């Protein structure tokens, strides 16, 4: 049996940063692009300002909701102090988007709530999911400030690949 190609992404940070929301957009974008998606996360007590993470896996068919050897293709970390938690879990040719976090923070300035959307934009540069899927995904997940979210997403998408 041939090994099924699956893309593994982890979003992580601290409760309240929009980690789970970003993962939700990613999940929808992959689904809308025709992938089978499994996305797994923690709820409840841990969310009260504690460490939060969400794994997303997509491809033709996904069995396990967690990556089998705990290694992923993309690390999307939203908090510099949390980075250490999964920095060693990157596949050999994987991409760590931590190098964009500072840029994201500069770009959103005092509108910190859009950091997750900017980072999604960066991530989208590396994935072969059409932009239309991302935009529809954002419309499904964000209930407010949709245009502003799309604008920060576009900024991030443009930044992707530059570092």
């Amino acid at each position, binding site marked *: 049996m041939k090994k099924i190609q699956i893309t593994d992404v982890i979003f992580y940070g601290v409760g309240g940063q929009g980690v789970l929301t970003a993962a939700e957009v990613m999940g929808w974008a992959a689904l809308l692009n*025709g992938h089978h998606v499994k996305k797994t996360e923690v*709820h*409840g007590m841990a969310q*009260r300002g504690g*460490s939060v993470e969400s794994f997303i896996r997509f491809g033709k068919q996904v*069995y396990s909701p967690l990556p*089998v050897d*705990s290694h992923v293709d993309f690390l999307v970390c939203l908090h510099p102090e949390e980075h250490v938690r999964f920095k060693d879990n990157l596949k050999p040719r994987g991409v760590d988007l931590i190098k964009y976090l500072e840029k994201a923070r500069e770009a959103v300035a005092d509108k910190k709530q859009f950091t997750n959307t900017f980072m999604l934009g960066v991530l989208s540069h590396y994935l072969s999911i059409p932009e239309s899927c991302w935009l529809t995904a954002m419309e499904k997940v964000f209930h407010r400030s949709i245009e502003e979210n799309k604008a920060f997403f576009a900024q991030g998408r443009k930044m992707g690949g530059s570092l």
Partner: protein
Amino acid sequence: MSLHRKDENLFLFSGNEALAQGAYESGLQFAAGYPGTPSTEIIEYLSHLKEVDCQWSVNEKVAFEVALAAAIGGKRSLYASKHVGLNVAMDSLMTSSYVGVNAGFVIVSCDDPGMPSSQNEQDSRCFAKVAKIPLLEPSSPSEAKEFVKKAFEISEQFDIPVMVRMTTRICHTKENVALGLRTEIPVRPFGVNAQKYVMVPRNAYQRHINLEERLVKLKAWAEKTSLNKIEISDKKIGFIANSVVYFYAKESYPEASFLKLGMSFPFPENKVKDFCRKVKKVFVLEELEPFLEEHIRALGVKNVQFKDPSFRVGELRPEDILSIVKGKKKEHKKTISRPPSLCLGCPHRFVFDLLKKLNVVVAGDIGCYTLGFSPPYESLHTCLCMGSGITFFEGLSRSIDKKVVGVIGDSTFVHSGITGLINAAYNKTKGTILILDNGTTAMTGGQSHPATGTTVKGELTKQLSLEAIAQAAGADTVDVIDPAKHQEFEELLRRRIEENNLSVIIVRRPCILLIKSQKKQ
């Protein structure tokens, strides 16, 4: 599987949402539960559907009985809670298999392996066995949707409540789920039948005979059902696996043979023996308790290997499968992780600041305020289960020569604190209990309860008065205070602690997340 397609009808659904949708499509008419991670979203999802009469109940025992009775009355019904919630309904659960149902009744119990949000990691499968009810275990959100439909059918075919056992990793995993149409099920007539529904000893004895007969039939059914599925591939290595663990193994060993157990009670002995005959070396994979293991050991098959007992603790993860195959022990790794803390602006912060200052022993309870145990407060000293903030206050007061304060949240007080308060008053306990009233069930995301005056559907209803019920339970004094008024709060608490009375102070200030979400709307 035809998931690799673009489909307008596909949604990214969590296991909880998928299960709720499956129940809805099965013609579900009534649902009840009490919030608890990882189960909360089941009732929340159902509350948005106009065809389903749905409620947050006072506690799980109440939810279970109301839902079972609704099924006996003729409507397809569902109960949902977290694993420890089912403990509260244990009394009702144990006799429910005797009386059986009328329309289908499904019990959803959501276990929390690894305890990201619980006080223990008990295994609900053991409850299904001891309560003598069939047990279904989906492995994914899409299976949760299908299995709950099956559960209603089994429940009606065999006149028995059916447990669907979920785990955190299934409840809170999302995947592509296709929506289907609802089948309307007519309400079944309720016929008076005292022999079946009145559990006095003579009737119960006959119902126990009847139950054992139903279980024999269910066992035969479990042997045949495709819920228990043999997949023969490489005959050198095979896995018997349940729940999400099946998928971990399936991805790690795509060429192995599998016996996927989707219905593990009554246990399909012959199917297991058959599988073990076909495959040379068999590994049994299951999270938590050795439930499958004990059944399989009793069969006396020789070519089977079980996990080391160290793997009974915590969640099984994909990387553990290889360790189990190699017969290794679990390494309990310490991971770096930021601990949770009380939110900025949380009213509980004022309370624990003060309790720390007063240097009293504090009996705590389940909720956000349990975090008062951790730095910088370190001023909550016990927490066992729902309601123990008051009962531990009483017990500790009887033993310790120091001031003891009981702390309990508003939702928790209504859930199981009232009986403790009556007991304390009845048995002449002196001391002070704080009801931390933040106007919501905060820990699980802000659900309504009787003292909020709104239902799960957001409708206004009778509002329970915490003041009146505390007084009626026998508190000598009942005060209401805003903890943000530091000085008044401190003066009041100091005074009440020194009195030779049973005092209740309702510490009332809304949850900061509740205020934020109201501002957004």
